[in-house]
C-alpha cells in the first residue's frame, strides 16, 4: 500500500480496521476503478467444441449477480461482468461439465517486483528516520566527547537540557515510534521482542535523564548526568542497521529471483489453426505451442515437429545445448537456440518442472537444519531473560557499585537491554540456508530441506549405483572385430535384423547403432531364442547365430584366436558377443555401458574429500570389477539384487558411516530412503523432485561433489554466524552489565551497545552473502 511510504505511519493503524471483515475492500488500492473490479476472467478447461460456448455462457448468465458472460473460444476464457462471487462462477461452470479457474494476473515476478518496491519504501523510511535521529544524536555525542558538561547543576543547564530532552523526545516520536508501538503491542500479547528491548533501553535512558532535568534533587549530585545522546544515537544506529540489513537480505534471494525470471510470461499456442499469444497461465494441457529460435520454452512439453538445440543450463547446470527432435521432452524455462519447433504441452502452470523446482527451493530455503534449533530455543526465551538480567545488573550496581551507583545502574541496564537483541541469533541459520540452497540450485542441485543440507556435509561413505549413475545406463556398441569377408555394415545390418525383435538391452544397443548409421534391417525368418545363450534366425537367405562362446562351441564353430580377443574385451568391461553366418564366425560385436565422461573425475573429487566411495551393481563380478577399476573405485559389491541394495546401505551404516546413496531414483528408492542422504539422478526435465533428499538435475556425478561442497560451505557459514551472533549476544551481555569494571574501570556505553546491536544482524546477513561467492571446485 502506497500510503506507508509517504506518511511513515504504517505502524499505527488503529486496530478496528483489522478485525473488520471488510478491511480488504476498503483498503485494497489495487482495484482503483469499478470497471475492473466488476470484471472477472475465468479460464475454462475441457471446452473442446464451439457448441460449448453457449452452454458455458448460459450457465454463467444464470448465476445471480452476473450481468454478462462472454466467452472467447479461441482463448478458452470467459469474461464475466457483474457482482457475482468468483466461486459461484466456478461452480456454475463445473455444473455445466467443464473445469474453470479464476485467471489471476499475479505472476510470481510481479509479486517479487511488488515486494522489492515495498522493501525500497521501507528502506527509504528507515534511512530518513536514521538521518533525523543521528542529526540530533551525533552533535550531542561530539559535545560530550570534546568535554562538554553532560551534568545538570545550574538552572541554565536545566533549561538547556530540558530543550535537548524535548528534542530527543521528538526524535523518539518521529524516528523511533515503530519501536515503542511494537513493544507495546507485543507486551499486550504477552510476548517480547527486539522492539521491547530497544524501547525499554532508550526509554530508560530518556526517562532517567528527564528526571535529572526535572527534579535533580531526587538524584545524588554525582549521578546528575543526562543520556539523551544515547537515546537518539541508539534509535539512529538501529534504524541504520535495519536499513542495511534489508539491503543485504535482498541479495540473499538472488537465486530464487533468477529461477522465477526464467519463466516466460506469454506463449504462442495454436488453437483452431490460428496462432495466439496468450498469457502463460492460460496455456492448457495438450495445447500445441510454437517456439522460435531465441525464445524461452513456456511450459513443459513433447516436441511434435521441428528440430533444434536447447540450452538447459539454467535448469541443469549442464553448459552444452541439447539436441531436440520429435518425441523429445522440453522443459519450461529453457532457451530454444537454433530451430523452430512445435510441441504439445504436457505440464502447465504449477506442474511444470520449473514451477516445482521454484516451489521446492523456496520451501527448502525457509527450512532449518537441526543446527539452527538450539538458536531457536534460545531466541524464544531470550528477551524476557535479558529483561531479568538487566534488572539484576541494575540491582547489583545499586547494592555494591561505587558512586554514582544510580548512574552506573541505569547505564548498565540500558546497555544490557540494547546489546542483547536476539535478531542476529535468529537470522544466523536461515540466512545461510537461503544462500546455500540457492547456490546449489544454480549448480543444478536441488536440496529438499535444511536437514538434508546439514547431513550431506557429514557424509563419510558414498554408494554409487553403477548403471545409470557411473555409467550412461544405455549400452552402446564399442567394437566390431571382423572375422570373415563381410564388411562392418553388412555385419551390422544382419545383426540388427536378427536382434530387432529382441527387448534385451544389449540387442537394443546393436539395433540403435545400426539405426544411427542409417542401416536398414531386413526381414527375419525362423527366429528362435536359445535361453541363456543367444538367438538364431534366417535373414536374407543366410542362417545367423548370435550369442556367447558356449553357443558357438555347441555348434562347433571355429573361434580360433578370437577367444583371446574376446577375453581382452571382457577385461575392458565390455560384453563380447559372437556372430556367425552360415556356421562360420563372422565377427565379435562388443557392447558396453560406457562410463560417463566425467564420472572418473567426479569420483576422484569425492575421494579427495575423504569420502569412501563404494560401487553397487547387479552385474557380474568381472564386469563390476572392470568398471570399478576404470572408475577408480576400489570397493564394490557385484551381483546385488535390487531388493538387497538397502541392505548394503545398512551394512555401511553399521560400520559407523554416514551414508550417501546415489541412484537413478526408481528401483533404488528403498536404498535412497534408508541412506542418510539419498541422491537421485534426474536428467533435466523428468525429475522425481519429491522422492530424494537431494536431486541432481544433470546426469553428471560432479553434481554430487558440488552438493557436498555446497553443504559443507553452508554449514561452515552457519557456524560462523552462530558464533558471531553468540559473541554479540551472550558474550556482549556480561560486558554490558559491567564485568570489566572491577578490573579495568570501564563500563560499555549504551551507544556502543546500540552500534553493536545494529550491526550484529548486518554482520550475519553479510557473512551469509559471502556464500554467494562460493564456487564448487572447477570441473
Amino acid at each position: 500500500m502506497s500510503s506507508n511510504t509517504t506518511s511513515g505511519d504504517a505502524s499505527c493503524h488503529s486496530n478496528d480496521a483489522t478485525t473488520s471483515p471488510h478491511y480488504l475492500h476498503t483498503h485494497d488500492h489495487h482495484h482503483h476503478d469499478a470497471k475492473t473490479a466488476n470484471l472477472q476472467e475465468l479460464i475454462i478447461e475441457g471446452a473442446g467444441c464451439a457448441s460449448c460456448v453457449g452452454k458455458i455462457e448460459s450457465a454463467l448468465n444464470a448465476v445471480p449477480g452476473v450481468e454478462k458472460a462472454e466467452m472467447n473460444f479461441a482463448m478458452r476464457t470467459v469474461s464475466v461482468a457483474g457482482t457475482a462471487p468468483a466461486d459461484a462462477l466456478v461452480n456454475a461452470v463445473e455444473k455445466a461439465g467443464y473445469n474453470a479457474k479464476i485467471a489471476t494476473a499475479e505472476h510470481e515476478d510481479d509479486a517479487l517486483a511488488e515486494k522489492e518496491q515495498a522493501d525500497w519504501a521501507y528502506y527509504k523510511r528507515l534511512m530518513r528516520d536514521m538521518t533525523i535521529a543521528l542529526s540530533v544524536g551525533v552533535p550531542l555525542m561530539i559535545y560530550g566527547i570534546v568535554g562538554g558538561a553532560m551534568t545538570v547543576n545550574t538552572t541554565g543547564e536545566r533549561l538547556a537540557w530540558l530543550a535537548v530532552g524535548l528534542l530527543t523526545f521528538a526524535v523518539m516520536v518521529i524516528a523511533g515510534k515503530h519501536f515503542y508501538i511494537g513493544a507495546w503491542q507485543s507486551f499486550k500479547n504477552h510476548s517480547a521482542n527486539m522492539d521491547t528491548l530497544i524501547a525499554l533501553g532508550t526509554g530508560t535512558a530518556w526517562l532517567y535523564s528527564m528526571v535529572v532535568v526535572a527534579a535533580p534533587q531526587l538524584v545524588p549530585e554525582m549521578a546528575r548526568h543526562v543520556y539523551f545522546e544515547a537515546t537518539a544515537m541508539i534509535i539512529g544506529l538501529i534504524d541504520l542497521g535495519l536499513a542495511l540489513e534489508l539491503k543485504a537480505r535482498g541479495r540473499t534471494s538472488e537465486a530464487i529471483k533468477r529461477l522465477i525470471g526464467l519463466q516466460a510470461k506469454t506463449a504462442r499456442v495454436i488453437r483452431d489453426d490460428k496462432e495466439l499469444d496468450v498469457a502463460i497461465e492460460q496455456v492448457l494441457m495438450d495445447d500445441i505451442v510454437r517456439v522460435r529460435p531465441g525464445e524461452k520454452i513456456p511450459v513443459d512439453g513433447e516436441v511434435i515437429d521441428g528440430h533444434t538445440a536447447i540450452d538447459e543450463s539454467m535448469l541443469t547446470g549442464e553448459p552444452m545445448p541439447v539436441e531436440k527432435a520429435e518425441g523429445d521432452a522440453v522443459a519450461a524455462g529453457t532457451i530454444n537456440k537454433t530451430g523452430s519447433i512445435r510441441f504439445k504441452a504436457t505440464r502447465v502452470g504449477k506442474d511444470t518442472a520449473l514451477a516445482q523446482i521454484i516451489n521446492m527451493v523456496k520451501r527448502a530455503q525457509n527450512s532449518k537444519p537441526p543446527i539452527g534449533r538450539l538458536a531457536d530455543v534460545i531466541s524464544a526465551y531470550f528477551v524476557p531473560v535479558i529483561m531479568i538480567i538487566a534488572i539484576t545488573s541494575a540491582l547489583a550496581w545499586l547494592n555494591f557499585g561505587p558512586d554514582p551507583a544510580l548512574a552506573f545502574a541505569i547505564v548498565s541496564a540500558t546497555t544490557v537491554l540494547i546489546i542483547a537483541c536476539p535478531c542476529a541469533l535468529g537470522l544466523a541459520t536461515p540466512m545461510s540456508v537461503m544462500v546455500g540452497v540457492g547456490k546449489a540450485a544454480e549448480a543444478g542441485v536441488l536440496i529438499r530441506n535444511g536437514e538434508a543440507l546439514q547431513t550431506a556435509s557429514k557424509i563419510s561413505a558414498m554408494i554409487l549405483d553403477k548403471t545409470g549413475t557411473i555409467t550412461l545406463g544405455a549400452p552402446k556398441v564399442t567394437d566390431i572385430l571382423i572375422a570373415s569377408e563381410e564388411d562392418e555394415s553388412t555385419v551390422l545390418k544382419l545383426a540388427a535384423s536378427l536382434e530387432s525383435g529382441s527387448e534385451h538391452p544389449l540387442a537394443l544397443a546393436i539395433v540403435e547403432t545400426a539405426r544411427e548409421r542409417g542401416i536398414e534391417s531386413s526381414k527375419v525368418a525362423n527366429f528362435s531364442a536359445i535361453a541363456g545363450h543367444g538367438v538364431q534366425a534366417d535373414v536374407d537367405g543366410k542362417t545367423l547365430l548370435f550369442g556367447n562362446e558356449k553357443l558357438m562351441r555347441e555348434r562347433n564353430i571355429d573361434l580360433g584366436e578370437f577367444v583371446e580377443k574376446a577375453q581382452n574385451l571382457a577385461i575392458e568391461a565390455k560384453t563380447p558377443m559372437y556372430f556367425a553366418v552360415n556356421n562360420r564366425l563372422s565377427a565379435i560385436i562388443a557392447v558396453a555401458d560406457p562410463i560417463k565422461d566425467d564420472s572418473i573425475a567426479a569420483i576422484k573429487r569425492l575421494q579427495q574429500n575423504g569420502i569412501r566411495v563404494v560401487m553397487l551393481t547387479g552385474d557380474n563380478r568381472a564386469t563390476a570389477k572392470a568398471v570399478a577399476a576404470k572408475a577408480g573405485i576400489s570397493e564394490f559389491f557385484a551381483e546385488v539384487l535390487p531388493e538387497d541394495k538397502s541392505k548394503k546401505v545398512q551394512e555401511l551404516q553399521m560400520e559407523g558411516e554416514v551414508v550417501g546413496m546415489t541412484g537413478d531414483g526408481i528401483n533404488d528408492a528403498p536404498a535412497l530412503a534408508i541412506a542418510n542422504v539419498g541422491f537421485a539422478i534426474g536428467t533435466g526435465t523428468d525429475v522425481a523432485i519429491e522422492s530424494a533428499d537431494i536431486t541432481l538435475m544433470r546426469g553428471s556425478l560432479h553434481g554430487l561433489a558440488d552438493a557436498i561442497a555446497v553443504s559443507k560451505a553452508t554449514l561452515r557459514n552457519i557456524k560462523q554466524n552462530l558464533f558471531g551472533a553468540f559473541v554479540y549476544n551472550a558474550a556482549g551481555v556480561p560486558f554490558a552489565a559491567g564485568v570489566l569494571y572491577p578490573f579495568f574501570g570501564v563500563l560499555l556505553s549504551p551507544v556502543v551497545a546500540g552500534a553493536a546491536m545494529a550491526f550484529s544482524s548486518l554482520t550475519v546477513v553479510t557473512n551469509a552473502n559471502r556464500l554467494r561467492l562460493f564456487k564448487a571446485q572447477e570441473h
Partner: protein
Amino acid sequence: MLLINIVGIVLIALIVWWFWLYKPKEAELGENDLIITVENGTYSPARIKVPAGKAIDIKFMRKDPTPCSETLLIPELSISETLPLNKLKSITLPALQAGEYAFHCQMQMYRGQIMVGN
C-alpha cells in the same frame, strides 16, 4: 535500599508471570474466517483455536514492512510461506491432531500458537 531490591525482585517475578506463566485467551476460528494481522512485531490474535482432524484455511494479513515478518513458519507442519505486504494470504493447515503448534517469523521475533482441540 531494601525497598529498591524488593521492587526489583517483584519486577522480575512480574516478567516471569506475564511472559511465561500467563496464558492469554485464544481466538476461535468461527464461521467468519479468522484473519491474523501481522503488525508491529506481533501476530494478532497470536493464539488461535482450531478444530482437530479437519483441514482448514487460516488467513494472514501482513501490514508490517519489516523483512523478518515476511516469512511465516510453522516448523512442525513444515509450512513456510511468504506473506505479501498488505494483501491477504491464505494458508491451508492439514487435518491436525489435537495439540499445540507454534508459528513464528524467520527470526522468531513474532510468535504465535495454534491450539488444535476437539
